[in-house]
């Protein structure tokens, strides 16, 4: 039978009907009782109405020491002004508007602005190369892109191939330096719009379009709706334990779903102050930031935690981190050593949380106060019905400890409503009434889930999913490459990194120069995450008799695992 949170442990989760949980969230928010059912409004105007207008919503700093602060009232005012500006530029409801920005205030406030004017916000990781950017903008039929001067060259490179792209808005440029179709804007200089009216969205109006990678085909756009808000609000409140007086830091970039669900919507719908550091990783820099900002709740990722561990406990002791009271992690399985280490150096354990782009909110988790079993994903959140399913029958596995597929019963508010332009891929995610996450796990007698691995060839590197098909396609664009396969190989920091297996065309020979050239080609075209960290030049690739490349054989070799059934493999 389906596994639900159990009352037999000391968990703060209570067994209740899943709908009851979300009804409770809706009741707390007054959702559906006359106020605009719009995430942008709920994250700014409602917080002001609740008497927190003067509380800082965003405290932003960058590597150069620049600092900008916006109260909730300023957040409301600037997002209204930005939304109005988008309207005056001819953008309308349901049009896809891409945010292709570093972690600057324009990204966070622009997110609310697009939602307020009824658009569908499409955040994309600013380190994407031009080909990765084009794939996602082309698929979405994006009408406008909001970006920075530093990313403009990538946009210009692909613009001619994007017939539906009407506008490029640059948040830090002078108009004189721009070309036709490009508009400069300054967020802080936009005139205040008194009486601005939020677009009349309803619960099922599309809100956010996040692209995610699969094993086959192009990246898929997971489409969410404004009704996700109660789920993101409640999980931020009860899993991240956000309270109005917290100072919250989420390490995730809003180009990915954690950075929007819990880097924008979760904290701001709770009226919580969040701090943002627009700078690369550095242990000293991070600890100094936590100390100076008085961070109380920190949502990070295993890769970052392992980097901190590598730099050692001595660095931690140079800082006063006593403000921290709750730590959470997401993106990939949190290894037990990381939990033990954080207990030792911070006096607090990291709480693992599990969810994905498609789920929109945390679905399996370690709640505050719940006994943590280091290495476990935790238990299903109260509003979620989760089970481990038999991979052949898709029926729940009733005996504990046996691995199967993680299945979620559809119906929670934050679940995606579609893959953009791809109903077949969406349908394929459901079997026997369950949504399949694509991950394998087992469940113990206490209802704790234990991650086993992916059920497909998608590579989880540094907490980000990278599709092998997209890498292989880009590899084949290189003039030297005849065939290619991309798999994940173990990595002590990033869990997995991309390794490519390549056969070369006649006339090309393996060399260090060629390896570096191919690596850099993929990095520029796709992203640093997709860049193979190692390339093996091989005479041939393992294939089925029908000619399909057997990635699983290569992956198993890298992980030292059995390669499984090879009966369909073609012999050389």
């Amino acid at each position, binding site marked *: 039978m389906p596994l639900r949170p159990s009352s037999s442990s000391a968990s703060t989760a209570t067994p209740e009907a899943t709908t009851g949980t979300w009804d409770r969230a809706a009741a707390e928010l007054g959702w559906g009782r006359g106020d605009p059912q719009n995430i942008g409004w709920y994250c700014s105007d409602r917080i002001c109405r609740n008497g927190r207008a003067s509380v800082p919503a965003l405290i932003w700093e960058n*590597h*150069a020491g620049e600092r900008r602060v916006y109260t909730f009232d300023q957040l409301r005012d600037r997002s209204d002004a930005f939304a109005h500006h988008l309207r005056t530029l001819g953008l309308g409801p349901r049009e896809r508007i891409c945010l292709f920005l*570093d972690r600057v205030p324009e990204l966070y406030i622009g997110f609310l602005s697009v939602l307020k004017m009824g658009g569908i916000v499409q955040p994309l990781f600013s*380190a994407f190369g031009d080909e990765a950017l084009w794939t996602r903008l082309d698929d979405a039929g994006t009408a406008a892109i909001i970006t920075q*001067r*530093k*990313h*403009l*060259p*990538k946009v*210009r490179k692909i613009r001619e191939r994007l017939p539906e792209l009407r506008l490029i808005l640059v948040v830090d440029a002078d108009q004189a330096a721009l070309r036709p179709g490009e508009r400069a804007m300054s967020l802080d200089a936009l005139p205040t719009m008194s009486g601005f009216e939020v677009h009349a969205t309803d619960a099922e109006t599309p809100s956010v379009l996040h692209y995610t990678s699969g094993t086959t085909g192009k990246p898929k756009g997971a489409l969410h709706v404004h009704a996700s808000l109660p789920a993101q609000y409640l999980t931020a409140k009860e899993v991240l334990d956000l309270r109005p007086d917290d100072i919250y830091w989420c390490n995730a970039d809003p180009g990915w779903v954690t950075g929007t669900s819990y880097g924008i919507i979760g904290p701001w719908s709770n009226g919580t102050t969040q701090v943002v550091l*627009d*700078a*690369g*990783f*550095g*242990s*000293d*820099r991070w600890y100094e930031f936590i100390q100076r900002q008085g961070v109380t709740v920190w949502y990070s990722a295993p890769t970052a935690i392992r*980097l901190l561990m*590598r*730099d050692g406990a001595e660095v931690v002791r140079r800082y006063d981190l006593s403000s921290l009271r709750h730590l959470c992690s997401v993106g990939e399985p949190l290894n037990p050593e990381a939990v033990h280490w954080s207990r030792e150096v911070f006096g607090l354990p990291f709480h693992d949380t599990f969810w994905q782009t498609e789920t929109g909110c945390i679905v399996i988790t370690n709640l505050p106060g719940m006994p943590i079993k280091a290495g476990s994903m935790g238990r299903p959140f109260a509003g979620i019905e989760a089970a481990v399913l038999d991979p052949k029958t898709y029926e729940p596995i009733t005996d504990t400890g046996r691995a199967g597929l993680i299945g979620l019963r559809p119906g929670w508010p934050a679940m995606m409503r579609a893959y953009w332009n791809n109903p077949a891929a969406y349908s394929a995610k459901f079997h026997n009434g369950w949504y399949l996450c694509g991950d394998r796990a087992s469940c113990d007698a206490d209802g704790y889930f234990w991650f086993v691995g992916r059920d497909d060839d998608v590579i989880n*590197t*540094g907490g980000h999913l990278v599709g092998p098909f997209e890498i292989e396609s880009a590899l084949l664009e290189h003039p030297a490459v005849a065939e290619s396969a991309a798999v994940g190989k173990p990595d002590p920091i*990033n869990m997995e*990194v991309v390794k490519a297996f390549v056969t070369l065309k006649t006339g090309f020979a393996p060399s*260090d*120069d060629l*390896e*570096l050239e191919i*690596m*850099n080609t993929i*990095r*520029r075209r796709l992203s*640093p*995450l997709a*860049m193979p*960290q190692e390339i093996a030049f091989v005479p041939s690739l393992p294939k089925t008799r029908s000619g399909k490349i057997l990635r699983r054989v290569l992956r198993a070799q890298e992980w030292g695992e059995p390669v499984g059934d090879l009966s369909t493999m073609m012999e050389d």
Partner: protein
Amino acid sequence: MDDLKRAIRDYVTREYLEEGDDREIADATPLISGGIVDSFSMVSLKRFLEKRYHIQIPDADATPDAFDSVDRIAALVTRFAAHASAS
């Protein structure tokens, strides 16, 4: 040392800045903390340095801090080049 720094600077500019990106890379420009080179891209930069200068930089020394500027990278290369010639 100047030649070394110039070679690193040129490589970073060519590989990590888009064509048309008008930012200048100086010897002290923060590369990692400034978001010009990320931790994943460091791998290709490390590979370039090892190949060009015939050195091996252990992963434990290839930290974001050690790669945060042309100055620091040059110091790292010099250190491991000295190791290589001494061994």
